[in-house]
């Protein structure tokens, strides 16, 4: 068993367990903490795929940024102690059936496709290539992304502002 195989199965176990905990646990606050675990495991998968830069971005933006924002939102909309933070789920059977159907559908599509089993050798540094691609081929999208982030920031501020 190579290091990559062992790493993949370990990360897959953490990722799947974390994801299940996110959707099944009763306490919303615990849900967010499990989400942080699942997001870090996803970052580990990126690392396995030689995308070290994406791993860093994942940790910074998702595990750092998103989790912090969600925790703040929970603190603003629920009381951290007491019964309010308990959340319930509804129509568990229907949800399970629909998501299982989607999973089986993807499974069949993936099973039919002829997919490569060996990855091609790396053509140079991935991070360097990523930076060059960002600032040459997709520079317009990159700049538009900056505009989008400003718009989202202003929009969020506008929504969440105090009326008085």
């Amino acid at each position: 068993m190579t290091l990559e195989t062992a790493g993949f199965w370990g990360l897959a176990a953490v990722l799947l367990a974390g994801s299940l905990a996110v959707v099944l646990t009763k306490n919303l606050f615990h849900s967010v903490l499990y989400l942080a675990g699942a997001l870090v495991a996803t970052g580990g998968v990126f690392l396995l795929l030689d995308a070290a830069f994406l791993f860093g971005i994942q940790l910074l933006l998702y595990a750092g940024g998103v989790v912090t924002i969600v925790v703040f939102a929970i603190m603003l909309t629920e009381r951290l102690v007491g019964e309010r933070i308990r959340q319930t789920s509804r129509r568990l059977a229907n949800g399970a059936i629909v998501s299982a159907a989607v999973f089986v559908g993807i499974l069949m599509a993936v099973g039919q496709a002829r997919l490569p089993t060996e990855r091609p050798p790396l053509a140079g540094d991935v991070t360097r290539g990523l930076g060059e691609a960002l600032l040459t081929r997709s520079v317009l999208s990159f700049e538009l992304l900056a505009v989008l982030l400003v718009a989202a920031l202003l929009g969020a501020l506008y929504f969440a502002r105090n009326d008085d």
Partner: protein
Amino acid sequence: MGLQAYLLLAAAVFAIGLFGVLTRRNAVGILLGIELMLNAVNINLVAFSRFNGDLAGMVFALFTIAITVAEVAVGLAIVIVIFRVRKTVEADRLDLLKG
């Protein structure tokens, strides 16, 4: 590990996230499910990119991550506004638009 293993892992995470979106009552819980689904998409993008030897997929994943963060910020701001107005974030009770 072949590309197939990564795709199946992503599919499983996507299905779990979909389950969360469908079953959670709390609006923040639904957003967490959406996060999981978007994450699964990112795994797919990076895996395809690596196995095809084309960096475009990773650039795309980078865009997806940034857009997701913006989406979460706006989504949670909306949740906070809804909580201020309606005093609840239970998705079942937010039926103002129901005819």
